[in-house]
């Protein structure tokens, strides 16, 4: 872990502009070059579970983005004060608090979605992406870049979730966000929804295909793993 010597963990805005090239990179990298799901291969489990429909996938993406962004921010602000021996526990407390807040807010304002996401909201706590970013980034960087890194990783995760969910909902139930997309005449002519798309393995196939496609357009990734 890189040890920083900066004095106070306050947002410093002297030299670097808020959206400097480096910060933009921090934000954009996780969307493609360093995508948490397809490149870092983290957070696969919830990607399989909540991608049957687009709406829960979107909410889950927002939830994870909120948690990664703010846990990164908080841990980065606290990074000089956290006792090294209990740092994992401190990280967990911060993550668990944020996730519980997300869960409670969903239960209060989006009850149906919270029922669909059921245990997976709680499981954001153990989502490897969150803690992975804290350990790899927030503990060694200033609050603002950490916050951007959190948002970037949350969005990178969300991007895959939504792509997979769109494919699964479209071919699995013929709808998108609950609206009928495949017209009735197609069914009348013998079109049938693909039942496999409703099952978790479909997500695995789609993520696999996505990784294949991504690596064929982004040559940088080919020898990474």
């Amino acid at each position, binding site marked *: 872990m890189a040890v920083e010597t900066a004095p106070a963990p306050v947002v410093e805005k002297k030299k670097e502009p808020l959206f400097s090239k480096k910060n933009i990179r921090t934000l954009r990298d996780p969307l493609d070059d360093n995508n948490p799901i397809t490149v870092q291969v983290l957070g696969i489990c919830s990607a399989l579970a909540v991608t049957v429909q687009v709406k829960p996938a979107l909410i889950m993406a927002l939830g994870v983005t909120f948690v990664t962004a703010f846990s990164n921010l908080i841990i980065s602000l606290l990074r000089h*004060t*956290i*006792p*090294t*021996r*209990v740092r994992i*526990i*401190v990280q967990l*407390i*911060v993550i*668990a*608090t944020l996730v*519980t*807040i997300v869960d*409670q*807010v969903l*239960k*209060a*304002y989006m*009850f*149906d979605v919270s*029922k669909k996401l059921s*245990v997976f909201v709680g499981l954001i706590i153990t989502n490897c992406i969150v803690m992975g970013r804290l350990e790899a980034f927030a503990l060694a960087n200033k609050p603002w870049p950490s916050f951007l890194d959190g948002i970037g990783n949350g969005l990178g995760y969300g991007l895959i979730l939504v792509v997979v969910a769109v494919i699964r909902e479209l071919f699995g139930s013929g709808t998108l966000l609950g609206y009928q997309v495949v017209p009735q005449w197609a069914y009348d002519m013998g079109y049938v929804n693909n039942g496999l798309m409703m*099952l978790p393995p479909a997500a695995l196939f789609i993520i696999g295909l996505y990784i294949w496609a991504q690596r064929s357009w982004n040559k940088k990734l080919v020898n990474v793993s």
Partner: protein
Amino acid sequence: MHSNRYTLMYATAISVLTAIILAFFSESLKPAQQANVALDKQINILRSVRLVNADRKQVQEIFQRRVRKLVVNNKGEELAGLDPDAIVLKDEVNKPAAERRLPLYIYTGEDGRKYYIIPTYGVGLWGPIWGYIALEDDFNTVYGATFDHKGETPGLGAEIAEAEFQEQFRGKKIMSESNTFVSVRVVKPTEKTDFSEEHRVDGISGGTITSRGTDAMLKNCIEPYLAYFEKQKQSLPSSGK
């Protein structure tokens, strides 16, 4: 390296701080959450009479206009002054039959027909299961049923919450030809039984314990209402068979 004292103080401080934050969120969001749970119950009750409606306002409005709530006991008497929504089914289902307070929801359809909705509560594999079963005004034919669960295995026991399973209940009978109580039984399709086809629905493959739990729940929760139904039948001869 930080000292033990610092580490301990830090851990204590952060625990207390997060506890306060969480307590604040939990308390301030509680009213909205409870309203959601109550609304969810109404949605499920209406779903058992085949009304699927996700609009909050409409659900509340329909519920208020068309659903009568009452509490009865196993002698068929109406218990006045009790709010069925305040009765905790979990506590009631294990009491001796004579002490059970039985909430009942009566839904009056557009055409004036009445449907009697019985709330049910039982045990699945990992946790509680519950549901609502609606009977037509012959007090025998099932009009619709809906079930839900706390934590049954997705794809196995959790299938009781799916339409495919619930739709099987439509048109089933709870009384035999000789007017004895059979309930609707959840059994294996191949199981040999001494009750006829109109009392059985197919259990879930891989969800045997949840299926049996549903079966036991229905029997336990419908039976005590029979006395009340019997009385209703006598007072409303026109709706008899």
